[in-house]
């Protein structure tokens, strides 16, 4: 079985955002792998380690040559091979991204396309759904739990919903996106999982050994042209405005005054 994982480079969400004119100033920014994509890589590694059914984990990214570093860090975690589709990751919209991923999917024909539920820069949460639609594949988004069948013919996806978990069993191949909970200690199971097998919470660290091994792993570089994908811009930015700055709040003297203000000024009661 082969798993294709997508990984996007995003500005490190821990750092302070600098705004230049009407856009975010990306110069001097530190970049990291989109956290949800990193969770997808972790989930793929857990599937591979416990099932014995996964032969290869391939990580796909779209971006400039600089993105190789983020790809390398996924390989250092333990993924087997990388694919870099050269493109401008800043200006791609969801539709364009989905077209590229579809084309790579068709070249690789994996058994599972595993993606982060969204990238934390644009927060669009659209790409996986678009890809599944284009490929006419089953989709299960926001996985908080995964359980792979023994014969790798299907995967059961647990999704958090109001008041509990919903479980969906989808045949493979299919498209699955992961949510934060997928990196909890017992979130990923396979027929080969030992009872009470627990992982450390969170995505694993790239060890120095893994980093050294990753140097030798293959990264295929492909251009959009090679894939035969047409990329007209679907989404155009017409204007960007900062939200109005918030005015200072007020202190009320009593509960009565609060109720009065909520009723008559804010009109929320």
């Amino acid at each position, binding site marked *: 079985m082969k798993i294709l994982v997508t990984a996007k480079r995003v500005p490190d969400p821990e750092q302070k955002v600098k705004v230049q004119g009407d856009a975010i100033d990306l110069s001097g920014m530190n970049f990291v792998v989109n956290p949800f994509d990193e969770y997808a890589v972790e989930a793929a590694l857990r599937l591979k380690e416990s099932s014995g059914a996964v032969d290869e984990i391939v990580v796909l990214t779209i971006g400039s040559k600089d993105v190789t570093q983020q790809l390398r*860090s996924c390989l250092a975690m333990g993924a087997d091979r990388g694919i870099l589709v050269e493109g401008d990751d800043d200006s791609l919209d969801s539709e364009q991204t989905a077209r590229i991923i579809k084309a790579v999917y068709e070249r690789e024909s994996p058994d599972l396309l595993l993606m982060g539920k969204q990238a934390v820069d644009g927060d669009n949460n659209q790409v996986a759904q678009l890809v599944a639609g284009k490929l006419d594949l089953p989709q299960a988004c926001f996985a908080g739990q995964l359980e792979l069948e023994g014969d790798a013919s299907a995967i059961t996806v647990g999704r958090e919903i109001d008041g509990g978990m919903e479980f969906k069993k989808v045949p493979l191949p299919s498209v699955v996106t992961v949510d934060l909970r997928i990196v909890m200690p017992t979130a990923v199971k396979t027929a080969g999982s030992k009872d009470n097998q627990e992982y450390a919470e969170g995505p694993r*660290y790239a060890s*120095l*050994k893994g980093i050294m091994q990753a140097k030798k792993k293959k990264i295929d570089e492909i251009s959009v042209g090679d894939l035969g994908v047409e990329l007209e811009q679907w989404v155009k930015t017409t204007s960007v405005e900062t939200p109005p700055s918030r005015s200072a709040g007020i202190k009320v003297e009593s509960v009565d005054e609060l109720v009065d203000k909520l009723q008559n000024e804010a009109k929320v009661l």
Partner: protein
Amino acid sequence: MLVKPFLDESHELFRESCTRFAEREIKPYAYEWEEAEGFPRELYFKAAKAGILGASMPEAYGGGGGDVLHGLVMTESLLRGGSSGVVAGLGSLNIALPVLLVLADEEQKQRFIPPVLRGEQIAALGVTEPGAGSDVSGLRLRARRDGDDYVLSGSKTFITSGAVADIVVTLARTGDHPHDGLTFFVVETAAKGFSASKRLKKTGWRASDTAELSYDDVRVPVRNRLGDEGSGFRAVMQTFQGERLGLAAFGHGSAEIALDEAMRYAREREAFGRPLAGHQVTRHKLAEMATEVTVAKAFNYLVARRVADGAYLPREVSMAKNFSSSVAQRVCYEAVQIFGGMGYMRETLVERLARDVRLLPIGGGTQEIMNEVISKMLPLR
């Protein structure tokens, strides 16, 4: 970044892993562990699992196969967790195991190194004694041969991780010659007659355990002797380079954090109607601090790069240690000054750093001993 030419992608990726580890596994508990004067043993396991413990040790024994620069990057990044003591404690294996790499035979390396790199055992280096520190030739702890054993008696002091260690790589006297009478042994702390005092109370490095060790006729099998009798002093000299570069990295790493903290505070804190950074005195002070940190760091990277490439540079390594530790004193002192009263409070990171860096011109060869090494290599005669 100025030091980029000395690094490759593997160092950058490793920095990411170490920084994350520090953020997640150390920072939230740093204050607590410093106050408690210790940290949980579990952290060794976690660091081992993350592939951070022993990153610079050879792969053949379970290490990461990294070079001196990976070690330097690791020290810098782990210090970001806010506890020098934790970094020193986790790092005691980096001063103990190199002795084995130099002296031990293959069987000994396979027996002792992998369990330490898996985080299952803790290793310490025992050289200093109550009666001898800088002057290693004055060591008195005796190892007397008795059949297939040696019997060790004497004491060691100021030993990092001494109270928690499972093995202490101990330098003992097997002959009367001041230098050629010294031999290393791996002493298992479970052995009868071995005991560690309670942790010594210190100015800084509080989360690390520093202990006095007592050897009361401890029997050590011959197979735990490292190298031939009399080979100890040479090994000390060979492994100093790594230890001293490590402490040099502690210096610029701590100073850099203090500088970052001071700059943040100078932007946020207001006095006389403007931020501290709006006062020229403060700005210039920060400019000097930044200059010193940049120069110390660049020199440390340069020397580390050369050492990683196989050079033997005792003079430059001593210079790196001395320069970096004196920069650390000044920068951390001034950072406290910029924080004012807040800089004197235990909850403030720069307060801790200022105490921690005081160790740097003392441990691993004092400032004066470093100057002795340097001056011997100057054309003065």
